[in-house]
């Protein structure tokens, strides 16, 4: 009876067994003790060996990720408790949750030393176990042959699987759950006296009715019926959220089950798979919740460890993949060679991922892809790039990449990747693969690459299709799909400008490292030829590039790899305890440049290796060359401890600068940004700002200082708040601003006719500012606007939220100066919302940091940024399509007909936004209009500039870019 009770109470269900063994003590150490019989010392007897040593695979590659302690503890609770998505349905107390964790851990690894209290150690072992089982193919291949098959292929057996729940009749409901018998871990739960597989595998507690006296009547009347009496926490049953106590399980995968045959049926499940359970339910299922596994998941408490980390660790790919199984997407590598001598089924598919229902439909029509690829080249004289297909309601874009006799086909849902940007996405994937494997053929045609490619493409699709799930560990705003697409698609890395003294220091430290002068650790010391030449390295801090000593193309290669494995967000959002990545890479520039370089110089034919070491928020990527000057590499060398340690030492050395960098990140945005919400006359926000302005002594002091320095006549309306209220375009929206615009560019001489009298001074000042900018010959003028750099001596609207820091660091005089130089927009107020400036030559771009954006908060602003990014996709596509034309025009200028729209230099779109859910019926919703403008500059350095600012002041993007690039001096 005690056992039964334990099973009932879901909280204590798993600790029940423990109670019997150990008494009532719930203590980590005790738990460990009970199973410490078979402890193997090798795991950490030798502390000198680096932790990652065991993770090196046969081919020398290493991907070792360890979270820092804080994160690790959280990870434990998650990772160990089976699949770890905690649910709202179960009330854990901290302590009990921990117990379950410990126990599971014990069940899995089964080795623990007495008196090793740190969770960290445990985690390491745990992860190592997990890792080795994941990487079976590479490391200890064939240890467990039954689980060798990649997770995706399991789904093949289940062509008819369905997602979520469908209501069949009133009384029956179907629930799909994901079961993994492997998770039982063999010896773990004593199956004999408990609920058996039903409980252990599925998590459904069923008490045979004979024992139950007070059970529900349904259970009593029909003995053999499988009534759900309880659910085990963290089990598949509870996680799906659809199984309720009182339901009766009638079938598993359409096989009728009773209490007699259930164990047999469940034991037939060979490996991780999805099964469909049919329940007879008391109440009909709420249609709203049916079929929406995704939304169900979202409502759950977000686990502290993101799916991303778990995905990188190699857990759970099948489950994640399943959740997007209904969205058509596919990657295939097809052979164009027909070998009719030995016809085998699906012989032409060299690689395919994933294996779900929706993608099988795309796979079924691969004939289309092959035929089109073959035929269209002859018809139109160009390789096929893309095609669009309708699968039922889904529009799917298919991108192609032909290499020698093989064809890479990637199908993506149109709602995620617009056709405009498909090519960039496909191009990036191809380049990443080439960097990692040398060529597509060598990536796809080796059988043992398949599991790694599965992982690669799982990440790829997850990032594109459900980025929210990867990040759900953080209280992140709804992900900005367009933003990710746009920023990742730029051939550049996000750069963080640092104060010169820090920058110099960082560069010095990096240079020291790159000189390979490792003292007595170096090969020179022992009179050996160097193992590797350090070609260069780059340093990231919280996903920002802060120093780069790599050539641009190499930087882009490295960055593509980092982007693909989400290393950058990882380092910014979580503290990485330790990250060590080592692999051979094939930098594209070096691979292709054999013919094109200057005469007399040839690239050394060496092999290249990428070493990435992350420590807390720092991450350094080092490109090494073997061969050439260094000794040639043979076989597949693993990471060299010396090099890894040297990078670590470098990072540790840099840690003293962390405070300085953090200060930079915390500093007020430069150039200053405005929040879109400030421009909408919503009373609440206005009041808050007003009160802030009036209550802040610094602000008023600042006003004084400004009054003193600038002419007193203007002092009255210096502050944004006041100016804003008096300027017509704020309150009147569209018509007002147009009138103002007319006045501005008509001749610039007279006062605008449409302006109300009281606002004249304000707008007159604006006119003045605009005339300045007109002087440079409009945005067409290239350069020559140096005088405008410091064009306004006026005070702009300081962001009241940052004054605290300002007060500490700067005198008022300095503050004023800083504002004058860092303001990007002209006119009295700061109207800049967002910007992206890409420097094509160096392959970097700058944009407001995440923190700067977050500090602006507001409800409209995030929307605006999403919109900005979406628009940038279009603008950049317009730039892109004109680029090849530009190259070709010199050769043969098309006669008469011309080339589409021709090369686009500048492109702008004006948007209007309204506050959401405007309830006031009497007044129309206030509106705010803003420009998103993209500008391509070829002189003096090739740049692409994207900016978003309020409509009230006409801006010249060239000048803004010019001003901004001053801050980008490297």
């Amino acid at each position, binding site marked *: 009876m005690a056992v039964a009770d334990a099973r009932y109470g879901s909280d204590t269900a798993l600790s029940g067994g423990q109670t019997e063994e150990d008494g009532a003590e719930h203590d980590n150490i005790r738990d460990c003790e009970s199973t410490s019989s078979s402890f193997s010392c090798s795991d950490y007897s030798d502390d000198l060996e680096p932790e990652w040593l065991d993770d090196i695979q046969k081919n020398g590659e290493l991907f070792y990720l360890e979270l820092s302690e804080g994160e690790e503890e959280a990870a434990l609770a998650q990772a160990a408790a089976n699949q770890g998505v905690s649910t709202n349905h179960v009330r854990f107390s901290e302590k009990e949750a921990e117990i379950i964790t410990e126990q599971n851990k014990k069940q899995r690894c089964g080795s623990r030393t007495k008196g090793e209290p740190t969770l960290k150690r445990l985690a390491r072992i745990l992860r190592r176990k997990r890792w080795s089982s994941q990487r079976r193919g590479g490391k200890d291949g064939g240890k467990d042959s039954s689980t060798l098959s990649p997770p995706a292929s399991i789904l093949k057996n289940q062509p008819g699987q369905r997602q979520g729940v469908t209501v069949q009749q009133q009384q029956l409901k179907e629930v799909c759950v994901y079961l993994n018998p492997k998770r039982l871990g063999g010896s773990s739960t004593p199956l004999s006296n408990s609920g058996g597989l039903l409980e252990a595998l599925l998590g459904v507690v069923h008490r045979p009715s004979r024992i139950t006296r007070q059970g529900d009547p349904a259970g009593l009347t029909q003995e053999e019926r499988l009534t759900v009496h309880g659910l085990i926490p963290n089990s598949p049953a509870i996680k799906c959220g659809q199984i309720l106590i009182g339901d009766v399980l009638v079938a598993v995968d359409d096989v009728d089950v009773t209490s007699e045959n259930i164990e047999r049926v469940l034991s037939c499940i060979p490996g991780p798979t999805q099964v469909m359970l049919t329940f007879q339910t008391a109440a009909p299922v709420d249609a709203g919740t049916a079929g929406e596994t995704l939304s169900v998941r979202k409502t759950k408490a977000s686990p502290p460890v993101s799916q991303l980390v778990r995905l990188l660790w190699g857990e759970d790919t099948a489950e994640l993949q399943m959740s997007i199984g209904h969205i058509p997407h596919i990657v295939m590598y097809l052979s164009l060679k027909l070998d009719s001598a030995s016809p085998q089924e699906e012989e032409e598919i060299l690689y395919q991922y994933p294996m779900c229902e929706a993608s099988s439909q795309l796979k079924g029509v691969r004939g289309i892809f092959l035929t089109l690829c073959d035929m269209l080249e002859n018809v139109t004289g*160009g390789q096929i790039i893309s*095609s669009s297909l309708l699968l039922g309601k889904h529009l799917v874009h298919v991108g192609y990449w032909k290499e020698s006799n093989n064809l890479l086909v990637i199908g993506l849902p149109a709602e995620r990747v617009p056709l405009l940007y498909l090519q960039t996405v496909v191009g990036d994937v191809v380049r990443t693969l080439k960097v990692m494997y040398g060529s597509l053929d060598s990536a796809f045609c080796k059988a043992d690459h398949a599991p790694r490619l599965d992982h690669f493409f799982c990440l790829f699709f997850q990032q594109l299709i459900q980025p929210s799930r990867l990040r759900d560990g953080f209280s992140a705003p709804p992900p900005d799909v367009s933003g990710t697409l746009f920023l990742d698609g730029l051939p550049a890395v996000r750069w963080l400008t640092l104060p010169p003294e820090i920058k110099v220091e960082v560069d010095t430290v990096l240079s020291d490292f790159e000189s390979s002068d490792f003292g007595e650790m170096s090969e020179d010391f022992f009179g050996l030829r160097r193992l590797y030449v350090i070609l260069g390295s780059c340093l990231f801090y919280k996903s920002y590039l802060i120093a780069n000593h790599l050539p641009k193309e190499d930087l882009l290669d490295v960055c593509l790899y980092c982007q693909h494995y989400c290393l950058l967000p990882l380092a910014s959002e979580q503290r990485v305890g330790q990250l060590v990545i080592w692999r051979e890479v094939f930098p594209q520039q070096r691979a292709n440049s054999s013919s094109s370089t200057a005469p007399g110089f040839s690239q050394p034919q060496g092999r290249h290796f990428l070493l990435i070491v992350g420590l807390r928020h720092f991450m350094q990527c080092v490109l090494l060359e073997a061969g050439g000057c260094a000794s040639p590499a043979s076989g597949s060398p693993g990471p060299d401890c010396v090099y890894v340690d040297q990078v670590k030492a470098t990072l540790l050395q840099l840690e003293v600068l962390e405070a300085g960098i953090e200060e930079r990140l915390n500093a007020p945005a430069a150039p200053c940004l405005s929040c879109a919400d400030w421009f909408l006359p919503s009373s609440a926000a206005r009041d808050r700002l007003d009160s802030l302005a009036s209550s802040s002594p610094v602000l008023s002091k600042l006003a004084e200082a400004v009054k003193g320095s600038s002419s007193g006549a203007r002092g009255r309306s210096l502050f944004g708040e006041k100016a804003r209220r008096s300027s017509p375009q704020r309150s009147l929206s569209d018509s007002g601003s147009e009138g103002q615009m007319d006045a501005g560019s008509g001749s610039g001489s007279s006062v605008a006719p449409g302006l109300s009298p009281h606002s004249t001074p304000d707008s007159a000042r604006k006119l003045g500012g605009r005339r300045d900018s007109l002087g440079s010959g409009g945005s067409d003028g290239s350069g020559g606007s140096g005088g405008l750099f410091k064009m306004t001596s006026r005070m702009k609207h300081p962001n009241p939220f940052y004054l605290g820091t300002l007060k500490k660091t700067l005198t008022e005089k300095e503050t004023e100066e800083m504002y004058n130089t860092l303001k990007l927009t002209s006119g009295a107020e700061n109207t800049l919302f967002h910007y992206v400036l890409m420097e094509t030559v160096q392959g970097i771009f700058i944009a407001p940091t995440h923190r700067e954006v977050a500090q602006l908060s507001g409800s409209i602003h995030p*929307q605006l940024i999403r919109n900005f990014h979406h628009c940038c996709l279009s603008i950049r596509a317009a730039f892109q399509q004109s680029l090849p034309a530009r190259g070709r025009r010199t050769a043969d200028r098309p006669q008469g007909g011309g080339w589409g729209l021709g090369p686009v230099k500048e492109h702008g*779109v004006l948007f209007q936004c309204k506050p959401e859910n405007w309830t006031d019926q009497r007044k129309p919703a206030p509106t705010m209009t803003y420009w998103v403008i993209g500008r391509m500059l070829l002189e003096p350095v090739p740049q692409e500039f994207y900016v978003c600012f309020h409509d009230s002041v006409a801006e010249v993007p060239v000048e803004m870019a010019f001003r901004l690039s001053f801050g980008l001096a490297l």
Partner: protein
Amino acid sequence: MMLQDGSLQLLCLTASSGVPLFTRGASKQLPFSVIGSLNGVHMFGGGQGVVLTCCETAGGGKVVWRVFQDSVMLIAVSGGRGGGGGGQGGAGSSSKEEEVRLQRLLENVWSCMVLVLGQDELANVRNVERLKRDLRSCFGLIDQLLEDRQEGILGNLTHCADSLLPPNPALLQEAVENFAQSADSEFGCLIVHGKIAAATEKWWRLAPQEVVLLSALMRSLSASGSASCDYPVFLPQGSPTVAHRLLRFQLLPGADVCVLCGPTPSLHRAESGLVCRFWSPLVETLRDCLAVGDRCLPGSVSLRPDVLALLLINRETRRSVSLVRTSTNHPLGDPPLPSKARCWELLKLFYIFSTTRYFSQEETLGLEERAQRGNTEDFVLGFSHQPLQCYLVTDECKSFGLQTPQHQLFLLIPLSVPTLALRTVATQTLSDITAATAF
């Protein structure tokens, strides 16, 4: 390469059996094997529940498929421009614009087939050979659509009737109304220089696509040079199965009037009795109207000098006015202005560019129609805020587009005008035209 650079070929087959009905366009016909394969891939996909809609190749080549009424398959193949130079990395030139153009073309060709033959004959193909023969009568119109060379005619693309705003609209309007009434019809229309100068209210109630198509038909009929004709037409939306009579009379060279009517009156009676009675008093007015010419706008509208070309669409009435100005006093030293033909080309491209990316086209498309169209994945819908205006600066000129609840305006402006002033030029042009003509 089987297709010439930039050439276009239209293939028509029966959807069920893949029998080729006709091919038009490009001087050199595609080999039959290619036609078969193009049809084959689409059919194969259809069998697997996958509908292939379009395809793009490097260098801007495009193939667009579309099946109408489950019976007729239309395929448009456009050759790349410059061929192969783009390579895999380079994006095709204005691919999206080309795709939309081809989609429009297929729709127009289908409507045109319905207009001439009626939907019944096309939807239920009993005798393929006969259908092939009958379809020949559409070739004139289809070729006109394919070439799309008439300057100043954008209706095929915009699905808004190309209009000409006469100096004295009231007189003409009255005459058209009376003329139609006397011919027992509610649908009457006066076409000057191929553009609608006046039409009865009911005429504007026809589906925009039909109005455009009828204008196209009128143009091709009047190009034949006959003084009058009686032509049976099916209205693709209004009455796809019952034919009406289109009576057309030439009033002056370049000015035609037409009515859609039932069995009466006879062509002869209408020509001899009605035309003279209603139109001879208005000869001078018509001459004034003809004098407006390509400008499409009456002399009372003064345009700013810095407008190279313009397309103004009234979103409610689905009418459009477009013009390209020949520059008279172009200052030396400025970059050369694009040629007139190039201006028309740019105007079209800019229209497609703006409407596919920013300005949604609220068309009277049925749900089914929209699903079929499927191609344009509505990039527009991805915006969280409403786009109002947009501009482009290219090597040749600047383009500005703006959208208000009632109008869409697209302008080409010389490079010499500063970008800051574009918006003013546009708003002023819009207000000038609307104030002077109530368009």
